[in-house]
Structure formats: C-alpha cells, structure tokens
C-alpha cells in the first residue's frame, strides 16, 4: 500500500518514459483494492488500542481455553438473566465466559444454540412450546415445561434447566387515563370498542399472539401498527395507539400511567423463564447444571420486573444489576464499584470513550474486511461482465436482488450457514457492497472510448495488456467511486451487525433501543456517522490520488 501511494504520486521520468508510467495502471488498481485494507488496518489498530474488557459484548477472536458462550436476545431481561448466569459460572465454576448479547429474536438465538455458536441462553416455556416445537396445545405451567423438556431434548439435543421462578407471559396494557375514559379493565372489555393497537412483529406473527387473542376476545381493530416494544411504549405515551402488547415483567409496566389489563378468560399461556443449554456444553463443563441450579426458583415475577427497572429506570448496566442480585442472594462476594451511567450525553460519551474506540475498531474491521472481500469478488466480476452483455445482466440482476433483501432478513439467512458473530456479518456486508462495485466496474470499463481500444489493439496490445494498460487506468476513478460508495454504505449497515453478535458501534444503538436509553443510542450513532464521514473523505482523497494525472488534466480542460 505504501509503495502504491508513492508510485501514484511519484514523479514521471525526465523524458516521460520512466517505468512508473505504464506500471501505474497496475499500481492504481492495487491501490484501489487495497484501500479497503486501509480501513482494515485502521480497524485492527483501533481494536487493539481500545483493548481491555468492556461492559459490552465483543466479538473477540477464539482463545485456546474452552469458553462457555452465553447468548441473549436483545432486550433487557434476556441480557440481565444472561449476565446472572455468566457471572455465576465465572465465580463458581471458574470458566471463562464469552457474551453474545443482543441477538435478534427467537429464531436467531435458538438457531445459534443449535448450531453451536452459543451454548446457553434464556428462553420462555410458552415460546419454546409453540415457536420451537410447533405444539399449539394449551397447557398449564407444569405440563408445558415437561413437553418442552422432552421435545427439545429429543429433536435438538438441547437441555432445559430449572426455571428461574417468574412468568413473563404476554400482557396487554393501556394508558390509565384512556382505559378509565373507556371503562376498560380487563381484556374482555376491549371488544366493545374500536381501538388502535400497536403490536410487536413477533406478537402479530404468532398463533398464541394476535390471531388467537382476536378470536378469543373478539377485538375490533381500528388500526394495527406493527412496531418494536420500545417504540410502542413511546407511541402509547403520545396517544398514537391505544393498546400495546408487553411482557409481564416489563419494567415500564410498573409506572403509574399504565394499566395492565387482566386476562380474564385465561388466554395467555405460561411463559416461564428457563435456561436452554446445549447437551454438548453440559458434557464439556461438568458442574454447569448444578451451578445454574443455584439461581433456580429465586427470581419471581416481581423481582424480575424490578431488575428490569434497575436497568431501564436507573441506568445501570445489566452486568451491574446481575452482580447486585447475586450479592443480595449471597451467591457472590464481589464488592461493587459504581456503575451508574452518567446523566448527560457529553458525560456518557466521555465515560464511554474507551469502549467507543474499541467498538469503532470492530466496526472498521467489519466494514474494511467486507469491502475488501467485496472488491476481490466484485471487480473481477465486473471485468468479466463488462465484456459479456449476458453476464452483465445476470450479475447485475442477482446482485441487485441481493441488495433489496432487508438487512435483518439477510442476517437471518446467514445464520444456518455461518452461525452468529463476525463471520455472517461480514458476509452480509460484503453482499451489500457488491452492487456498487460491480456496477461501477462495468460502467467504468464501458465508458472507455472505443477509439482508444481500437488504437490499442491496432498497436499490438493483447487483450490482457489492453486491460491493464488502457482500460483499467481509465476506469479506475469510476471503480474507486463504487468502492467508496460500498464502504460508506457498509459503515451504516454494519450497525445492524450487532443483532447477530458481531459487535461494532451498533451495540450501544441496539442496547439503547432495548433499554429506551436514547443517549446510549446516540453514543453509537454519532461515532458511526462520524466514521462514515471520515471514511468517505479519506476514500475521496484516495480516489483523487489514484486518478491518473492526465485524466485530471483532461477533466479540467473540458470544464474550461
């Protein structure tokens, strides 16, 4: 890379025939492909500089020591319980624990468990029964647990450990004033009014969610908005919706403003929190089951709601809340430091600068590696496609379709192939990077004047020489512009990589959304935006540097 830059900027020989002249073609291309490598190197450096164990999960490289990988879905309760389990294992079993939190949804989490990307996470009995086992029977708590235990063991080799002791069934809630106005206190009152419902995607999609509820309670839906729980609370607050679905242990339900409607017909099935563990992990870590049994039955629904509120209301980290709980239960003797987040945005940004730096390093690493790989695939593909119209339309078609796949869906597709973590995130990002790179490579090559190609051939250049000495140097600025577009898009998309545990600046964004902490969201979003701007500027400069001087002069002349 250093040599490449030197060559590009270097002087041309006295008579203008110094080697650098024609060699420049190859060098500029090398510079082009290597520019993603700059981001990569910077990412590595930053990741190393950030160093140290942070409070947020990291996609750290594998270590030789056996480690237990604890996963969590991307909401507070899942993270708190995962922390409780992780800290128990660390303190009582002396096993190193890797945390893969903020995984997006049941499918991704369970998929990760089954394919071994994680060893352990907290699921709910009702979810396991219906979504994982496809068993639609309405069962009471104990038979449900038994059915889940047997089914998961037989079909997936997954063990269900003793439940924590709380039931986080679905609940519907309204603003207290609105409920009072309409005279609604229980679910069977809902049928008398046409209401606006704000339900989570998961709730809408499940048989034991909206579909069953609608039938059971004869709901009249004036409007149905699908949105995240976190956003639903805000919408309810602003009276944009009348009713939302919630989990029974939501911290936000404890406030005075909201009313949880009684499930008077007993529609919602039990959702007991239970650890799911891979059989294989139980073999690998003897004592794991008995260690986790220390916490069994010790967190009831009230306690769980309070733990959630400690994170979401008091601004403590899940790790801190977990340690406090273990202290109260006498399961740890670690003394606590203060771990309440500073209040102001600036204070938070300052306090998190080390973490932010490390996450920015991960982020750059993800985008750099993805862009580099996208170049290695996209540029050659573009070179072939520029010569063959049919390859071009096929390649652009396929790459274009891939581009339209929503990022979360694409990340979900990656799961069975690559598990969770950095690898699937890089693959997904590289797929998004392909379109601009392939398209610009084709466009750049096609924009080369046919006259110049004919003269090149007429002077005796082989197709390869023509490509290297004429087509590529002339197309390099356009190709680099495509790579720049891909890199900048990648910085934005990489924030979603946090959903599959790949780390990066998406971590605080996802955590902040789930904890309703918008300062935390900004502590990821602002550096990400800054990173995109800086990268864009750097690549723009490189693009100029790699543009042959003769082309810059020609452009300047045509402007005159």
């Amino acid at each position, binding site marked *: 890379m250093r040599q490449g830059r030197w060559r590009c900027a270097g002087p*041309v020989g006295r008579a203008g*025939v110094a080697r650098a002249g*024609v060699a420049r073609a190859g060098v500029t291309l090398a510079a082009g492909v290597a520019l993603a490598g700059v981001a990569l190197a910077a990412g590595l450096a930053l990741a190393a500089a950030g160093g140290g164990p942070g409070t947020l999960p990291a996609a750290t490289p594998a270590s030789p020591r056996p480690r237990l990988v604890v996963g969590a879905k991307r909401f507070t309760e899942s993270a708190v319980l995962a922390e409780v389990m992780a800290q128990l294992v660390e303190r009582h079993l002396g096993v190193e624990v890797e945390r893969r939190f903020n995984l997006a949804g049941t499918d991704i989490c369970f998929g990760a468990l089954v394919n071994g990307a994680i060893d352990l996470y907290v699921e709910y009995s009702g979810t396991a029964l219906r979504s994982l086992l496809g068993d639609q029977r309405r069962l009471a708590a104990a038979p449900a647990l038994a059915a889940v235990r047997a089914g998961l063991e037989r079909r997936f080799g997954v063990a269900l450990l003793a439940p924590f002791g709380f039931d986080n069934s679905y609940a519907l809630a309204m603003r207290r004033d609105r409920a009072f106005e309409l005279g609604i206190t229980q679910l069977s009152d809902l049928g008398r009014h046409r209401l606006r419902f704000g339900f989570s995607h998961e709730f809408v999609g499940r048989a034991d969610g909206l579909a069953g509820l609608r039938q059971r309670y004869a709901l009249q839906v004036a409007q149905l908005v699908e949105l995240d729980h976190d956003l639903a609370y805000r919408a309810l607050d602003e009276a944009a919706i009348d009713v939302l679905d919630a989990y029974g242990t939501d911290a936000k339900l404890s406030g005075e403003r909201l009313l949880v409607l009684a499930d008077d017909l007993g529609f919602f099935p039990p959702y007991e929190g239970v650890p799911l563990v891979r059989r294989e992990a139980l073999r690998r870590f003897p004592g794991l089951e008995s260690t986790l049994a220390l916490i069994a039955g010790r967190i009831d629904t009230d306690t769980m709601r309070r733990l959630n509120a400690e994170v979401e209301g008091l601004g403590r980290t899940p790790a801190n809340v977990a340690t406090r709980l273990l202290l109260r239960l006498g399961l740890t003797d670690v003394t606590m430091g203060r771990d309440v987040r500073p209040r102001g945005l600036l204070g938070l940004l300052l306090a998190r600068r080390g973490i932010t730096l490390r996450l920015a390093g991960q982020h750059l690493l993800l985008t750099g590696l993805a862009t580099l790989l996208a170049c290695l695939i996209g540029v050659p593909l573009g070179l072939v496609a520029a010569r063959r119209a049919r390859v071009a339309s096929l390649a652009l078609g396929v790459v274009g379709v891939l581009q339209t796949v929503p990022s979360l869906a694409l990340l979900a597709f990656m799961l069975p192939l690559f598990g969770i973590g950095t690898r699937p995130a890089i693959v997904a990002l590289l797929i998004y990077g392909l379109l601009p790179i392939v398209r610009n490579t084709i466009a750049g090559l096609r924009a080369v004047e046919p006259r110049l190609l004919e*003269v090149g051939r*007429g002077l005796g250049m082989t197709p390869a*020489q023509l490509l290297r000495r004429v087509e590529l140097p*002339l197309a390099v600025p356009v190709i680099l512009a495509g790579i720049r577009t891909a890199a900048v898009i990648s910085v934005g998309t990489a924030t979603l990589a946090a959903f599959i545990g790949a780390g990066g600046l998406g971590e605080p964004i996802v955590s902040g959304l789930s904890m309703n902490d918008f300062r935390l969201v900004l502590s990821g979003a602002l550096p990400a935006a800054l990173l995109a701007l800086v990268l864009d500027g750097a690549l723009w400069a490189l693009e100029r540097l790699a543009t042959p001087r*003769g082309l810059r002069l020609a452009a300047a*002349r045509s402007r005159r």
Partner: protein
Amino acid sequence: MPPMIEFWRVSKRFEGRCALDELSLSVARGTTLALVGPSGSGKTTTLKLINRLVAPDTGAVLFQGQDLRQLDPVALRRRIGYVVQDAALFPHLTAGENVAVVPRLLGWPPARLRARVEELFAWVDLPATEFASRYPAELSGGQSQRVALARALAADPDVVLMDEPFSALDTINRRRLEGQFLAIKRQLWKTIVLVTHNLGEAFRLADQVAVLAEGRLQQLGTPEEVREDPGNALVGDLLRSLPGFET
C-alpha cells in the same frame, strides 16, 4: 520480392451492407498508397483489413506474400504502425509514454527506449525535453497528431497505416505535418497506406492513388494518371466532388 501488401478479391459485409466488393490491389515495398473516395466507400475497412482489426468474408489479404490468417495478429500489429484521425492518444499517459507504448510491449530496455523516444520527437519536430512529459490534455491538435505519428513509427514498423491523419487540423498545421510526413517517408523508406478524402493531400503525398466508391475499386494509378485521365465517368464526377481537386 513479393509486394508488401496484397488484396486478393476481398469482400466484406457489415450487417448485410456491402463494405467491400472483390477488392484486389497491391502495395509495393517503400511506396505510399492513398485510398480516396467518399465516406462509406470502404477506405477505412480496407485499412483495418491490413492490421486485422477487420477480417475478410471472402478473399485473402497477404503480408509479404503470406496470408494474414497464418500470422499472429498481435505480432503482426507490432510491425504495423497505426495513426487515426484526431490522434487518439491515451489520455492517462504522457506524450513520451504514448510514443513508447509499442517498444514497451516489445520489451525494449530502458536506455534504448529513452534514446528512441528522443529520436522520434526530433523527427516530428517537437523538443522532447519540453513535450515528452506533457499529457495529451496539454497538447494542441497538431502537436497531438505529431505525437501519434511518432507513436506509430516507434518500433520501426515495416508498414504504417494512416486513417485521415491530417483531416482534423487547420491548413497551416496540415501543410506542416505533410512536410514532416514526406521527409520521414524519404528517410525511412516505409510502406504507407493513407486513407483520406482530400484529393490534394492524396496527390501530394502518395505514389499510387486508389479511388474507391461503393466498395469497389474504380481506378488505381499514379497521382498524374488519376488526375489527367479519370478511368471512368464515375471517377471524374467523384474527383470533382472531393475537396482539393483544384490543387
């Protein structure tokens, strides 16, 4: 010694339209043949048949007595210089690098390359110290065309093909380049095929003039023969319609 270039009843169609119809002619070593005729008469196609940018449908093109199809096109082209209208210099290379393109392809050592480039710039009357490091965007039309001429001559080819090389230039530059062309031709004893629609140019520069119309050879002769005695009425009309006839 066989003629440098021979056409044996060469025909070529493009998308059904006849570009050349049974063209036969030959160019002797060291002579200049001018191909004249209105646009669409097949002049440029004839030229590109020689360096195999176009392949004949029927008939054969021979190079020093050998069918072109038996020769490697890349090696052939490196022995044939090529100049096109408005120069078509590679914009990302300096003038010097443009001139050095073919010698580089041939793998000349740097010292020989440098000496050659300076020699060529001298031939086309451009001081190498001033012009070799300039980019095409920094050259005038006349200067560009002279660099293109130097580029075509760089590897000392046996044959030089020129497609309307002077037509984009003003009269002064054209006359100047024609002078250089004649000087080079005398010094270097090249076989040159020149496409032009300017009769005056053809008469001044060529040893033989071939008049083409509608893909057919109408007349082949020295400038004097063609000027004094047009072979048929069509040639007469044609000559009167082309610019430069009065000169």
